């Protein structure tokens, strides 16, 4: 997969959305092992219910990390300069997530070509679970 060229990176342009899921508890556990966040609310069902949740809660950094890595795969993993994510709604086992990215702005700064990208992860209900933005350099 090669990164798109500068001339193609107009406002609103983005890759085909990626659909992830249905998410399983195993996805959460795999992410927790990889990341080191071992909060039991994400894998221990009795613990999560005692805390008032209907099931184990998705790991926010899992969907945020999937969104950021997928956008980086589009514009080149070595070109990422900034990623910001904000959580809007939780994710649950069985959810099907859709990841979206599009160019918000293409510009030159300090002699470099850059793009700001808008990121979103939505649930099967249409609600946004994560919104974010990222900045990439675009090599000549």
């Amino acid at each position: 997969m090669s990164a798109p060229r500068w001339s193609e990176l107009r406002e609103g342009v983005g890759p085909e959305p990626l659909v992830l899921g249905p998410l399983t508890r195993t996805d959460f556990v795999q992410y927790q092992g990889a990341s080191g966040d071992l909060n039991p609310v994400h894998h221990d069902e009795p613990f999560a219910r005692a805390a008032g949740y209907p099931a184990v809660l998705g790991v926010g950094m899992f969907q945020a990390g999937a969104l950021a890595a997928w956008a980086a795969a589009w514009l080149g993993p070595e070109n990422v300069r900034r990623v910001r994510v904000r959580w809007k709604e939780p994710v649950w086992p069985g959810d099907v997530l859709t990841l979206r990215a599009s160019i918000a702005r293409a510009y030159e700064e300090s002699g470099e070509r850059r793009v700001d990208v808008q990121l979103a992860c939505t649930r099967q209900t249409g609600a946004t679970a994560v919104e974010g933005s990222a900045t990439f350099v675009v090599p000549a």
Partner: protein
Amino acid sequence: MIDQSALGREGRPFELDVERGKVREFARAVRATHPAFFDGERPISPPTFLTTMFFWEKDVDGANPWAALGMDQRRGMHAEQEYVFHGPPPRAGTRLTARSRITEIYEKQGRRGGTLTFCVMVTEFRDADGKLVAEAKLTGVETAQPPEPAGEKP
């Protein structure tokens, strides 16, 4: 109640080795498929890889100044996260020295009433030459009431 005196509190430095196996494991866990995250001796780390700092700071007493805020865990959540890279993200084989600091504490009125207290911790990651490679900015929020879950506990 957030302890305002935590503002400016700095943790002790700790090391984060960007290891090949960990990079590949993390990339797989976030469902990445781009070969740059997996191939060769020095695969590049995914954009949120530096979250693995929470593994290694546990080896150093006083590395994490967040506890000084005294945030109520039942009302506290991870609201926002940002990573800034001053060049390409680090590749496997890089040893980073990380240091965290509480940089902001501020309040906002919640939409459903009550005061929200936001706390920001910035972690700087430097390479062996002391060059700033990346920064992680964690924003946590403490709500007035136990919230509907919107994020995760920081």
